[in-house]
């Protein structure tokens, strides 16, 4: 797989940032070697590309995503306080102790 140059990476990341919350195709799904930008927020929701779906299943996935967009509208309409942090906790972990090697 072709490695991205720093410039290509920033180009992709910038478009992703502009697309914001409504972008429905994760950055990781865009094949890196094409250099194609991610789907913009105005694009039709698109299922991931690697899946082995029949046309009928793809249609249902589109419908499901559209249904979820409706369900989630109320969540997205909330104005969250700037300082409201997520309710999960990340803990640092001490490195596992290894037995000393003698000699």
């Amino acid at each position, binding site marked *: 797989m072709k490695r991205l140059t720093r410039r290509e990476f920033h180009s992709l990341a910038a478009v992703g940032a502009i697309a914001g919350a409504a972008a429905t195709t994760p950055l990781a799904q865009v094949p890196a070697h094409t250099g194609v930008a991610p789907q913009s927020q105005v694009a039709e929701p698109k*299922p991931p590309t690697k899946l082995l779906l029949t046309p009928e*299943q793809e249609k249902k*996935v589109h419908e499901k995503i559209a*249904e979820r967009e409706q369900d*989630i509208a109320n969540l997205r309409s909330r104005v969250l306080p700037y300082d409201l942090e997520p309710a999960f906790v990340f803990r640092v972990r001490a490195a596992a102790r290894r037995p000393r090697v003698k000699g």
Partner: protein
Amino acid sequence: MLSDEVLYMSVRELGSQIKARKIRPVQLTESYLARLEKFGPKLGAVATLTSKHALQLAKQAEKEIDAGNYRGPLHGIPFGAKDLLATKGIKTTWGAPPFRDQVFDYDATVIHKLAEAGAILVAKLAMIELAGGGGYSNASASLQGPSRCPFNTDHWAGGSSSGPGAAVPSALVPFAIGSETLGSIITPAAFSGVSGLRPTYGRVSRHGAMALSWTMDKLGPMCRTAGDCGLVLDAIAGFDPLDETSVRTPYISRPARHAAPGHAPLEGKHIGVIRPDFKADGDPEVEMAFNVALETLRGLGAKLEETELPDYPYSAIAVTLYSAEAASIFRPFIQGEKLHQLVDESQKIGLVAALSIPATDYLDSFRLRSQIQTDLAKMFERFDVLVAPSRLRPAPRVDADFNASSAKTATDKPGDKPAEKSGDKSGDKAAAKPTTNPSRDSERHSIIAASNIAGLPAISVPCGFTKENLPVGIQFVAAALADDTCIGFAHNFQKVTDWHQRRPSGF
């Protein structure tokens, strides 16, 4: 073989009989194995029988007890485990055809703890495939086929802990371990007439349980009495270094306290009543049973006050949280060919669609989760527990399409507003069609979604039966880590009611 009278005893009663050597573990195990073999297929309750393993353990228990080494109230007691718990050398199918031959080389912590307590695993029990993580459209969404409610076998046992739902009230096992992400213990407990406890998040180690959602999965006991739930929780609760989310706060099971002479058992207790709009969302027979249950609680001395949940889009938050996590957990599976071996088409579609949940929606759900935890904690400054109907409708028929109006029970009127908005990923659909944009009113009664988001404990116990002989459940929800409070209220309720003692005919 032991009589049905014995096999329908509570865990506590069986334990004291074993301790007194009036019942022998081998005979008890053989008797339950015989019932599992005889009735398991009819109820669709069993994934794998563990007969050889069970009989070895029973013999060992018998020797230990005879030698005076009695381990405690679960010593020599058989049990079943939902088939998402890893068991060393025994198949763990996750209820899904792609995993039909999966065998782990270790035991889940909960299995290990029960073995330490001397309990005997007699069966891995049926479940909805992958615990219904993608959503499912019918009761048959399982490698094991549909599980049936023992009280009316034309109807579903509930999911996704469907095997425990079918096996416990029919005395195929004295108790079982189920799991809940969003309603999967409370729903089968309600639909099948079980006393089912969903402990506080982190109270029971998740190590070795199929991960659907790291932040919402809980394991809990499904028994025939609330008191038994406390006994089993006693054995399985506790910090586990193999699950960093398990809590260090010890669980202390307090035997039910007797009221002082001249005082009612729940005197001075405040209960917040979450009353859904039954006319819009529910079933009149469920409403009637719920109202009678409230009167019973009032008669026990509790002060009841109607209340509502704080205003949040609980269903959307809960679904976003677990769907995004499930998509991450199962991504390689979803992107592979084995996805297509799943039974239910809705599962496949739901899992694929979950791959595209934006990270911002997931994070916003987590941020709202902080607020919800705080706001719900405030409710428990006013109330000892919240009560609500466990489900707004009784169990649907086993052949019902959960996505269609036909999923409604006979008592539903055509044109009823679809779905009860409890937020259960399966139960909503089981009760009726999934919805878009649940109304603010109905969200204020979404106790299953709200309490699962906040990781609060809840217990569902039977509080009546419909004319079709379908169980109705009432749930008690308490503050985080107040598991024993839930159990205590339910235990007091069961001291003056006998719904939990009903036996299904033919079993």
